[in-house]
C-alpha cells in the first residue's frame, strides 16, 4: 500500500488513505478507501485499489459516506434536553464542557444513591463502539453492567462460546487467503472443494468482517458452495447444493450430515484419533438422527443431506457459519455439530479449510484491562452471570434477558443511569420485546446517548446527546473478526472535522479525564493513541502511528496451529480444552448443565407446537442499503429499499388474496407489525421473511409515534426469555405468526 497516508495535490486537495469501520454502521471489514478532502470538506470517496482484500471495491454504504456525514439531520454538537421533555422533539445545543459536567454530576449522583452497579452501558451490534464499550462501561462508569440487549446474546456470542468450549479457540472462518500478500496465489493456499455457507449471505452482510465477495472469487477459482438457508437466495441459485431447511431445524440438519459422514466412514481417522475427544459417543448419538428422520424434520430431501456429507468429507472443504447459528435456543448445539463436521472431516485449520482463531472470545478489553477498574464488590454483581456463567465468561457482559427483568423489577438492585453507546435498541434490531425495554428505560434517572443521528430510542429517553464522529473524522483501528480471528488489521485515519463530533474513544477519555483527573493525566490525544496502539497490537506494528504508515497489515495465517502449540497458553500441541483435544463430547457444556453431545429440539413456537399459527416467521436477512436501523434517512439508499418488506410465497399470497405491494399485518400473541408484501418464489410455502431495523426518520418524532418505530417492529413478536439452557440463542429466525390484510 501507499506508504504515505496523506497526500496533497497541486490544487490543495488532500487524499487520505484509510480503512473503514463504523460509524456509519458496518462490521470490521476495513475496506480500503481514499478520501478526497478540499478545504476541510470531504468531496469524494474512492475505493483504494491497493487494499490487499477489497482492492478498490466498495459497497453502497461507504459510497454514500458524504451523504451520511453531511446529512442535514445529523447531530454534530452536544445537546441536552430536560428530563420532563423526554419523548418530545426538543433539544438545546450546549458546549462539551457543559455536557461533561452534566454527565459527571449525573453519574456521581447515581453512584451515591445506587452504587457503582447502579449504572449500565448498552452497546449496539457490529459498530466499532462494541469494542470501545468496555472502556466506557468499565473505565468511565466503573460499572459491571455492560449490556448487549439482544435476547440470548444472539449475535456472535453463541458462536464464540461454541468454538471456545469445543476447541478452545477463536472464531472459525473459511480460508480466503486474506493474510497472504499473494492472496490466492500463495503456494501454501489451496482452493477448497466445497464451502459450507450456513445461515448467512456474505455478499450482503460482510458479517464479522469477512469480505463477503471473497466467496465470488473462490467460486471463480472453482470452489463449489453448499448453502443452508430456508430461502433460495441468489447465492443458493449458484450453489452446488441448496439445503432449504425449515427455519429452526439447523441442529437436526447438522446431525444428519454427521450421521452420513460417520456411518459411511467418510471421516478422517487420523485426525479423529490424534486430536478429537468423544468420537464414540458422538457416533452413538448420531444414530438418533438417521437421514430419513432428519429429512422429515428439516424438509431437506434425504439425497441432498447425503450428498452434503459426502462433499464435505472431500478435504479441503471449509465452512462460514452465520447468524442463524446464534439466533435459536438450540443454536449452541447447531454450532457444536458444525464444529464436529469440520473437525472429523479433517478440515480444521488446513489450507483451504476452516481456519481457527488463535484467541478465544470477542476482541476488546475486559474489566481488568482498562485503566480505571470496577470495584471488586460491584464487579461480583454483574447481572445474570450467576445463572448463566457462560455469558459472563465468553462475553464479559450482563445476561440480556435477566438484565431486562432487573430493570423492570429492581431485583437484584435498581439501575438508574444508562449510556446508549451506538445502540438503537427499541427499533427492531438488538432486542426482543422492545416495548418492554422502552418502558424499562423510561425508569432511568439519566440517559446519555453517543451517536450520529437522533433515533427512536434516544428520542424516547435520552437526556444528553454526545455527537460521535464517523470513521472519516477520527483516528481508529479496524481488525477483522473483532480480533478473534484477524487476518487484516488497519489504521483508520482522520481526514476531516465535522462540527464538534468526537470519536468513541475520544469521548471515553474526555469523560475519564473529567471524572478521574488524577489518573488520566496525559492528553486525550495521547490517551486515545495509546489505547489504539494496544488494540492494533495484533498487526505487529509498534504503535498506532506505525500502523498508519503500513495501512493494512496482513496478519499471517498459520495452518495447523494445534500441531505447533499455537493454540494453548502452555505452548504444547493440542487444543485449549480440558482434554487438550477438539471436544466432540464437550466438557464445558456438561459443566454448565447442558448435554455434552449435540441434540435437536423442536422450537417452542413451531408448526407442530403452536398450530394456531399458519406461518413460520423469520427475520434479520440483510439489505446492502442499511446496517440494521441505520441509513434510513440517506435518500440514495432509501430509494432502493423504501419500505419494510415481508417476503411471501406466491401460493400463500394467493390463498389469502394478497397481491404484490399489499400492506399486511403480521400478528402473534406478542404483538403485530405492518409490512408491505413482496411475493417471491424464493420463500418456502408457510414461511414469511420480515425485514428488520425499520423506523421512519421522516415521520413525527414525538411520543408516542417515535418516528413510527412501533409500526413495523417485528421484534415485538419475538418472545423474551425463550433461550437455550446455557443462556444463549433466541428464536429471531423461527417464531410463528398469522398474516392479515391491512389498510
Amino acid at each position, binding site marked *: 500500500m501507499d506508504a504515505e497516508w496523506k497526500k496533497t495535490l497541486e490544487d490543495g486537495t488532500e487524499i487520505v488513505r484509510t480503512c473503514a469501520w463504523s460509524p456509519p454502521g458496518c462490521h470490521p471489514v476495513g475496506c480500503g478507501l481514499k478520501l478526497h478532502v478540499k478545504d476541510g470538506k470531504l468531496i*469524494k*470517496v*474512492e*475505493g483504494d*485499489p491497493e487494499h490487499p482484500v477489497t482492492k*478498490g*471495491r*466498495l*459497497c*453502497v454504504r461507504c*459510497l*454514500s459516506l*458524504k451523504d451520511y456525514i453531511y446529512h442535514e439531520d445529523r447531530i454534530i454538537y452536544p445537546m441536552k434536553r430536560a428530563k420532563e421533555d423526554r419523548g418530545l422533539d426538543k433539544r438545546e445545543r450546549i458546549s462539551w464542557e457543559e455536557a461533561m459536567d452534566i454527565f459527571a454530576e449525573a453519574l456521581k449522583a447515581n453512584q451515591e444513591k445506587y452504587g457503582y452497579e447502579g449504572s449500565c452501558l448498552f452497546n449496539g451490534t457490529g459498530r466499532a463502539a462494541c469494542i470501545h464499550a468496555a472502556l466506557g462501561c468499565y473505565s468511565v462508569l466503573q460499572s459491571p453492567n455492560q449490556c448487549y440487549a439482544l435476547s440470548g446474546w444472539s449475535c456472535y456470542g453463541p458462536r464464540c462460546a461454541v468454538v471456545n468450549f469445543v476447541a478452545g479457540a477463536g472464531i472459525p472462518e473459511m480460508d480466503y487467503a486474506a493474510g497472504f500478500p499473494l492472496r490466492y496465489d500463495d503456494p501454501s493456499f489451496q482452493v477448497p472443494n466445497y464451502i459450507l455457507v450456513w445461515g448467512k449471505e456474505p*455478499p*450482503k452482510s460482510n458479517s464479522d468482517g469477512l469480505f463477503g*465477495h471473497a466467496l*465470488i*472469487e473462490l*467460486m*471463480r477459482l472453482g470452489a463449489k458452495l453448499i448453502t443452508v438457508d430456508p430461502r*433460495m437466495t*441468489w447465492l*443458493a*441459485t*449458484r450453489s452446488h447444493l*441448496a439445503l*432449504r431447511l425449515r427455519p429452526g431445524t439447523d441442529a437436526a440438519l447438522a446431525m444428519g450430515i454427521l450421521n452420513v459422514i460417520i456411518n459411511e466412514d467418510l471421516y478422517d481417522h487420523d485426525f479423529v484419533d490424534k486430536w478429537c475427544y468423544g468420537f464414540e459417543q458422538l457416533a452413538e448419538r448420531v444414530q438418533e438422527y438417521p437421514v430419513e428422520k432428519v429429512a422429515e424434520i428439516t424438509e431437506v430431501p434425504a439425497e441432498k443431506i447425503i450428498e452434503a456429507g459426502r462433499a464435505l468429507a472431500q478435504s479441503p472443504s471449509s465452512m462460514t457459519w452465520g447468524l442463524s447459528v446464534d439466533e435459536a435456543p438450540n443454536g449452541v448445539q447447531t454450532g457444536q455439530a458444525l464444529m464436529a463436521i469440520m473437525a472429523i472431516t479433517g478440515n480444521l485449520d488446513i489450507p483451504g479449510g476452516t481456519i481457527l482463531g488463535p484467541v478465544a472470545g470477542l476482541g476488546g478489553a475486559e474489566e481488568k484491562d482498562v485503566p480505571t477498574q470496577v470495584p471488586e464488590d460491584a464487579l461480583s454483581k454483574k447481572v445474570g452471570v450467576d445463572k448463566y456463567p457462560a455469558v459472563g465468561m465468553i462475553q464479559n457482559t450482563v445476561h440480556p434477558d435477566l438484565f431486562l427483568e432487573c430493570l423492570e423489577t429492581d431485583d437484584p438492585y435498581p439501575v438508574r443511569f444508562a449510556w446508549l453507546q451506538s445502540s438503537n435498541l427499541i427499533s427492531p434490531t438488538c432486542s426482543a420485546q422492545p416495548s418492554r425495554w422502552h418502558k424499562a428505560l423510561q425508569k432511568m434517572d439519566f440517559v446519555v446517548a453517543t451517536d450520529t443521528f437522533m433515533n427512536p430510542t434516544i428520542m424516547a429517553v435520552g437526556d444528553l446527546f454526545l455527537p460521535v464522529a464517523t470513521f472519516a473524522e477520527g483516528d481508529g483501528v479496524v481488525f477483522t473478526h473483532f480480533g478473534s480471528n484477524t487476518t487484516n488489521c488497519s489504521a483508520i485515519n482522520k481526514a476531516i472535522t465535522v462540527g464538534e463530533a468526537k470519536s468513541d474513544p475520544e469521548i471515553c477519555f474526555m469523560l475519564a479525564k473529567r471524572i478521574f483527573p488524577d489518573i488520566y493525566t496525559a492528553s486525550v490525544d495521547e490517551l486515545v493513541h495509546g489505547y489504539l496502539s494496544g488494540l492494533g497490537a495484533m498487526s505487529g506494528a509498534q504503535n498506532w502511528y506505525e500502523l498508519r504508515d503500513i495501512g493494512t497489515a496482513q496478519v499471517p495465517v498459520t495452518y495447523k496451529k494445534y500441531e505447533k502449540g499455537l493454540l494453548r497458553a502452555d505452548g504444547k500441541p493440542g487444543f485449549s480444552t480440558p482434554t487438550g483435544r477438539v471436544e466432540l463430547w464437550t466438557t464445558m457444556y456438561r459443566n454448565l448443565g447442558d448435554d455434552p453431545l449435540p441434540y435437536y429440539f423442536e422450537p417452542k413456537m413451531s408448526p407442530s407446537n403452536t398450530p394456531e399459527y399458519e406461518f413460520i416467521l423469520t427475520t434479520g436477512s440483510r439489505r*446492502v*442499503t442499511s446496517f440494521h436501523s441505520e441509513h434510513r434517512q440517506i*435518500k*440514495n*439508499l432509501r*430509494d*432502493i429499499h423504501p419500505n419494510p418488506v415481508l417476503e411471501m410465497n406466491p401460493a400463500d399470497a394467493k390463498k389469502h388474496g394478497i397481491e404484490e405491494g399489499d400492506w399486511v399485518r403480521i400478528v402473534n400473541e406478542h404483538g403485530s407489525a405492518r409490512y408491505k408484501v413482496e411475493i*417471491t*418464489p*424464493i420463500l418456502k410455502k408457510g414461511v414469511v421473511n420480515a425485514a428488520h431495523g425499520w423506523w421512519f426518520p421522516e415521520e413525527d418524532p414525538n411520543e408516542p409515534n417515535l418516528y413510527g418505530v412501533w409500526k413495523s417492529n417485528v421484534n415485538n413478536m419475538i418472545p423474551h426469555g425463550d433461550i437455550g439452557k446455557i443462556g444463549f440463542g433466541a428464536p429471531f429466525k423461527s417464531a410463528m405468526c398469522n398474516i392479515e390484510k391491512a389498510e
Partner: protein
Amino acid sequence: MINGLLVDTQYCTGCYTCEIACRNEKEIPAGQWGIKLNQVGPFCVSEEEDKFIWNYTPMVTELCDLCADRVAAGQKPACVHHCLADALEYGPLSELVAKMEAKGERAYLMIP
C-alpha cells in the same frame, strides 16, 4: 474504436454499487441513472430439482459517457472500479468480444 462494458451475469450479485458509484461520479440526481440494475427472475424452472434462474442485469443509459474523464486520467470507470463482484469490465469492443468468447456463457456487452 468503440469502447463498452462487459457484464458477467453469472457473478453480478446485484449489489447496487455500480448505480451509486456512477451517480456520485457523474453527479446524477436521485431518480435518474447512468447505469441501472435490473433483474431477470427469480423463477423456478424445476420444482423437482429445486432449480431457479435469477440473474442481475445492469444496463447503461445515455447518461453514461463511459467515464471519459476518469479513463483519460488512466483510471477505470467508477462502476468498474468499485464493482464488488468484478462483474464489469471496460475496454474496446473487440477485446471485450474476445473475453466474452473465452468466457463462453452468461455475459453481455453494452454500449451507452
